[in-house]
């Protein structure tokens, strides 16, 4: 083993999904010193839309037009739902703050927390969601008006067929036509990789050629839908330019991972957090978390050839569920690996999964997770917070099914917001904020 390094800070955040990013952002903006460690970057799989809540799977088939109403309903039926720990104002505020922060770095979102929208996906389905990337926004209005539209796909782009979209959605949007272009500079029969195309379109010459190829296909259509490849760090500019060159509104269509809108989120959060002074360690797996005698936490991981330990006043676990490795399946048991926190779970393994995968009510295992108090502190059976300064945020928490509720990002952002309120309160009472940037 090589060197030892010891760091100190107010808050350690484990995880860089939507919840870890939000927690780091909110904490830094409270003036707390923050160190964030994550093993991988799940945001690159994110489709870009910020879902808040559109469906209460245990309570029927209704799709809510207003996510906040939906949340109100959901929480009345299910007091233990993580959203029930917040009031609606807090939910609105937390998402508003993230939306503003993203826009400041050039990543614009449209819509408000009181209305759900329908985003056309590459499968031709209409996904209910709340905050919509500006690059996807023109689709919904055109759909509602049955505007005549052109869907364009790109030769060599896997899993994206304009014909599939047009055929599948035609009962709801009949006035669509499909067409295909070759991406400028991409040889025939080569695979078209979304991220590479997106970066290439930041070059004005490529963008111009791309626009001309699309333009030559437009007859009298009033709107154009294309794969989500309009730039990574400059999507605002690329989108606006393309719109101008085509003379009609353009919207991006989200598709399967790895997705460019997700990469945008990941990169923009990275920029924001660095500006806020957050110290970030990526590609590092936390291997030990030790609660110390003096009520602080010691978090350990290895960084190249040095062993790093961080001594922090508080700890935020934003480690997700099974894909994130926040929860693991161990024989008959679902466990939390970092601190062996109690995990609420179905009594019997046979209740984990339903016979049908697409069963509308969702799978029992998805509601497993950590049970917390109203500041998102894990509780024991009494139920009392196990540590006054330990918080779990995002998908790791119990009694929600973000996949079926379409509430992933909303839950992540809102729980992070509430947890940071708890941290601020804790640090103030204990007067142990270091109020300085970590080394």
């Amino acid at each position, binding site marked *: 083993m090589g060197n030892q390094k010891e760091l100190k800070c107010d808050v350690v955040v484990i995880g860089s999904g939507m919840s870890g990013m939000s927690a780091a952002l909110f904490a830094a903006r409270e003036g707390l010193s923050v160190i964030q460690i994550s093993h991988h970057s799940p945001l690159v799989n994110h489709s870009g839309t910020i879902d808040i809540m559109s*469906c209460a799977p245990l309570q029927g088939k209704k799709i809510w037009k207003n996510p906040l109403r939906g949340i109100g309903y959901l929480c009345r039926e299910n007091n233990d739902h993580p959203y029930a720990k917040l009031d609606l104002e807090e939910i609105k505020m937390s998402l508003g703050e993230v939306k503003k922060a993203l826009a400041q770095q050039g990543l614009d979102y449209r819509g408000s927390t009181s209305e759900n929208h329908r985003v056309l*996906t590459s499968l*031709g389905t209409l996904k209910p969601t709340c905050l919509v990337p500006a690059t996807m926004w023109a689709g919904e209005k055109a759909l509602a008006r049955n505007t005549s539209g052109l869907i364009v796909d790109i030769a060599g782009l896997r899993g994206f067929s304009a014909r599939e979209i047009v055929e599948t959605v035609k009962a709801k949007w009949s006035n669509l036509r499909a067409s295909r272009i070759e991406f400028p500079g991409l040889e025939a029969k080569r695979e078209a990789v979304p991220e590479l195309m997106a970066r290439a379109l930041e070059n004005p010459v490529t963008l111009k050629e791309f626009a001309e190829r699309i333009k030559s296909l437009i007859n009298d259509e009033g709107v154009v839908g294309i794969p989500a490849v309009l730039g990574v760090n400059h999507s605002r500019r690329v989108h606006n330019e393309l719109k101008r060159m085509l003379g009609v509104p353009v919207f991006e269509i989200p598709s399967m991972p790895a997705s460019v809108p997700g990469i945008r989120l990941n990169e923009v959060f990275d920029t924001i957090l660095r500006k806020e002074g957050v110290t970030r360690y990526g590609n590092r797996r936390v291997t030990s978390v030790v609660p110390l005698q003096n009520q602080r936490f010691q978090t350990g991981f290895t960084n190249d050839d040095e062993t790093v330990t961080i001594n922090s006043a508080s700890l935020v676990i934003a480690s997700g569920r*099974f894909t994130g490795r926040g929860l693991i399946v161990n024989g008959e048991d679902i466990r939390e690996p970092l601190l062996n926190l109690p995990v609420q779970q179905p009594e019997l393994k046979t209740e984990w*999964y339903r016979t049908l*995968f697409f069963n509308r009510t969702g799978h029992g295992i998805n509601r497993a997770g950590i049970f917390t108090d109203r500041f998102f502190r894990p509780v024991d059976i009494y139920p009392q917070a196990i540590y006054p300064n330990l918080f779990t945020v995002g998908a790791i928490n119990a009694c929600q099914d973000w996949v079926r509720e379409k509430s992933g990002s909303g839950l992540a952002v809102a729980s992070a917001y509430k947890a940071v309120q708890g941290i601020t309160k804790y640090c103030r009472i204990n007067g142990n904020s270091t109020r300085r940037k970590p080394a």
Partner: protein
Amino acid sequence: MAANYTTQVLIIGGGVTGTALARDLVLRGACCLLVDKEDVNFGASGANHGLLHSGARYVYTDPKAAMECAAEADILRKIAPHCIEDCGGVFAAIEGDDEGYIADFPSLCSDVKIAANPLLPDEARELEPRLSEKVIAAFRVNDAAIDPFMLSLNMLQDACEAGCTYLANHEVTGFYCDNRINQVILRNNISGEQTILEAQLIVNATGAWSAGIAEMAGVDMDLIYSKGSLLISRVRIARHVINRLRPPSDGDIIVPGGTVSVLGTTSILAENLDHIRPTRLEADLIIEECGELIPSLSDERFIRAFSGVRPLAGASGDGESRNITRGFSLVDHMEQGIDNFITITGGKLTTCRLMAEKAADLACSKLGIKKACATHLVPLGKNRGNQWTEPGLSATQWIADPAEMGEILCECELVPKSNIEDIADLMRNQGQKPTIKSVALRSRIGKGPCQGGFCSLRVGAAMYDNDHLKDDEGIGNIRDFIENRWKGIRPIVRGVTASQVELQEAIHCGLFALDLYE
């Protein structure tokens, strides 16, 4: 009622038996229509171990079946080498196994002329390093692995090329009969449309469903159903087929299938044929039992479980399903007063050609066809569209010529776009409509660790591009395919699989809202 369709022979059931029979009959000049309520190998033929039996497994319980297997395996090796991996087999007993059985095994084998060469435990472990330290006796036998999909699909293709018609998704739902079956009611399971059909002869080759078909003609058949489940490991566990040297029991065979291994089976009496699914209990039992042969199995990852049903003819009332013969039964229902109706059921994948020969002999005698069977001599065809079930084949070809083969749609199994086209073309030529599920049946799509989460979406898009799908058929196609895969994943979710399932659900339901589509 006027018939919409007439044929000389109607074969019901597109498993190995039905397809082998179609091939046999057209080679003798008969005119056939083959129908399946789903698709080729929907039944036991697509849910078995893939073991081309040397016969050694049955020397004790059923010497006649053992001899049949030995003879048929040799014929298949000659006519269908492309469907077979001649990997050889090992029988191994471990501490505590029945010493009497071990002692009798060599003579039981030699009685029926089945080769079984003794191995010292160390020699056995040299052949198969993962074998348990507790091996006390071992033999080498002529077992092999056979790809039942490639076998059936090529038999079907041979038959179709010689004039047989095949209808997938067509279910026989009833007969109009007096002392013969005058008309057959056939339902298209996709459109719901019904067809009335007339045939000189009807052959029931529906495996476990045979009794139900016979009942439609008012004939009783005494069948018992034994459900068997199997597990697929992520990697290949052994080079040879490994058998436990003991009287046939649960979890005692491991058969290689290209890059993976298939472990099994269980044997549970089943009442209902329609909701056959592997259970967690069975998966655990297989891992435990096979783990006695290969102790390191507990660290292995499994990617899927599946179940099939064996129809066991005869002796009702006996509770022990393994003791009933695995031989086949051929019934001429003339004995029960129906002139033009035959049932061929039971048996094994290994003996499907023989079963077809016997059934065809009977059919031909009824039809007055004199020509003799030729299937033991005529090599089985090989078709480009039927080769993609072989693990690893598309990968090697893709690496040789990536531009020609097109983009990779399935990353686990390296299935390129051109495979889909080969298969779809062949299906179209047979007059069938390709779906994601039917393409998956004929390729490696959905067979790797991701079990179709990603590739179902890519295959769907490619199929729209080439006009195989229209309207919103893709949605139903994907859901169907995923539900089908899910049956096999649900019983084995542990550790890493839980995160794969979660990612898949995040994509299909979280991102695309497929759960909400109506």
